[in-house]
């Protein structure tokens, strides 16, 4: 073993190498590796967050869907109820109207009937009078039998 000034030279070289590595090699490489590790961690966290958000959104959608279904059921039930109501009301008013029309028609018929009857009675009485006149012109004095004619007329009523 011969130790000599090479030792000093080597030590100086060593110091320079370590200084250079410390100054220009290690920080950028290590920083880059840390940056990459951070980006990967961030990416994983973002993925996890996205997954969670998706789950939240899905549950929200399910909730919303349930609400909507419930609401739709309510609306359908309400409208059915309303339709039934309308039908009932319509039926009722139709009945009333029909009754009214029938009553009107009956009244009119009655009225017409009464008028016809009156007409007929007048015509019949006229006819009877005419017929009687014809018969009586020959032998019966009108004034003499006025009382009987009036009686007949009264009976015809």
């Amino acid at each position: 073993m011969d130790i000599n000034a090479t030792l000093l030279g080597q030590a100086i070289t060593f110091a320079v190498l370590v200084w250079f590595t410390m100054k220009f090699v290690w920080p950028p490489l290590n920083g880059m590796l840390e940056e990459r590790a951070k980006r990967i961690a961030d990416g994983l966290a973002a993925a996890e967050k996205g997954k969670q958000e998706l789950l939240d959104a899905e549950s929200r959608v399910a909730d919303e869907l349930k609400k909507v279904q419930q609401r739709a059921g309510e609306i359908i039930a309400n409208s059915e109820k309303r339709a039934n109501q309308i039908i009932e009301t319509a039926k009722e008013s139709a009945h009333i109207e029909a009754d009214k029309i029938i009553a009107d028609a009956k009244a009119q018929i009655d009225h017409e009937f009464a008028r016809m009857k009156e007409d007929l009675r007048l015509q019949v009485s006229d006819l009877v009078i005419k017929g009687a006149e014809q018969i009586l012109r020959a032998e019966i004095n009108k004034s003499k039998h006025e009382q009987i004619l009036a009686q007949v007329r009264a009976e015809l009523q």
Partner: protein
Amino acid sequence: MASATEYIIHHLTFNNVSLNGKSGSFWSLHIDTFTVSLVLGFFFLFIFGFVARRAKVENPGKFQLFVELIVDMVDGQVKDIFHGKSKLIAPLSLTIFCWVFLFNLMDLLPVDLISFINDKAGHPEAHWRMVPSADVNATFAMSLSVMILIICYSIGAKGFGGWLKELFSAPFGPKLGPINFIFQLIELIAKPISLALRLFGNMYAGELIFILIALLPWGAQWILGGPWAIFHILIITLQAFVFMVLTIVYLSLAVEDH
């Protein structure tokens, strides 16, 4: 067999240049270790600096992913072992791992490659050892730097007084102050020595075995050389990893209380 001995010695001799003219003094330099480690260090900085400048968060290329793999591995080790806060430990560990790995990787180059080039260039006697981690200067340079950092981190975490107090009061309590101090000193010195010699021993032995295999007849070399090289892929990675992990462990021990 003098030629075999000469061959081995030739391959295990550093390209030594004296800085003050006297041979054998401390002030000499292993040009080969220094140059190879410098080139490998700049290679590491170039590759990693290049990737770091153009690193993209999205759609990284294969090359960037390879670099990220290493950075991530080092970062994981540091986070597992060292629980304090430090801007230095992770880059230090990355540098140690990559630099030591590249040192060790030179062990997989053919042992005669450099000699061959030197021969062709007309300098058959020139020495050049290609594996810096088979030079104690390179391994001790790192491990002693780590020891200095251990002391700095201890003082930083506990204060100078706290550090001195711990030197004399752990592990046996303040009554046995000097014994504690001796134990602590041994512990402190053992760390860089074990770090440096473990790496040096493994790489030196690996290199030596490759040289010995190279002495076999050329047709038989692959029988031992192949398995040893494959096994060595594991060793060089493992040694780089062990050096790095032990550095982190020692520094985390320095910050924590005994």
